[in-house]
């Protein structure tokens, strides 16, 4: 199998691999930074000093994102628009190349982003109002 054949067969794998890489990198980086920040805040408190507000804000943001804090209504609407646009684009791509062997990749993408768009719409309509 040549490189071209290998690439033609498995090019789509770069997306999930990249997603996994980015997620793992984010988790390890956030964890290490949160630990450092908390240690620093503890040192400030032990010395009877007020920690810098930007440090507290950073830790609060990290905690919020780790808890999966609910996005605002505007954020949910934007998620719906982005996923719907991606789904429409991938669906259109699938329609144009549906005769090709690799067209399934577009269909998978269209279905996955379509489901996410429906989920975002569901959260927008029925989710907790901020």
């Amino acid at each position, binding site marked *: 199998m*040549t490189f071209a054949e290998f690439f033609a067969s498995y090019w789509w794998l770069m997306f999930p691999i990249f997603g996994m890489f980015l997620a793992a990198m984010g988790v390890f*980086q956030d964890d290490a930074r949160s630990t*450092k920040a908390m240690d620093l805040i503890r*040192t*400030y408190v032990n*010395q009877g*000093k007020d920690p810098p507000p930007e*440090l507290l804000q*950073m830790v609060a943001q990290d905690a919020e994102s780790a808890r999966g804090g609910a996005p605002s209504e505007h954020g949910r609407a934007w998620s719906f628009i982005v996923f719907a646009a991606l789904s429409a684009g991938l669906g259109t791509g699938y329609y144009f190349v549906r005769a090709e062997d690799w067209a399934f990749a577009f269909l998978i993408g269209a279905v996955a982003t379509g489901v996410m768009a429906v989920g975002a719409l569901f959260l927008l309509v029925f989710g907790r109002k901020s």
Partner: protein
Amino acid sequence: MTVELFRDFWWLMFPIFGMVMAVLGMAREARAEDEVIARARRELEQRQ
């Protein structure tokens, strides 16, 4: 082979550009947060 590969997969440059931008954005955010920690540590050392 290279020409054929490019002809078939030229459109991949867009998601790859997106991936590069995502990594750069993440690195920039990490650098900014590291800077906040470093500044707080410097302040703490100066006050001691």
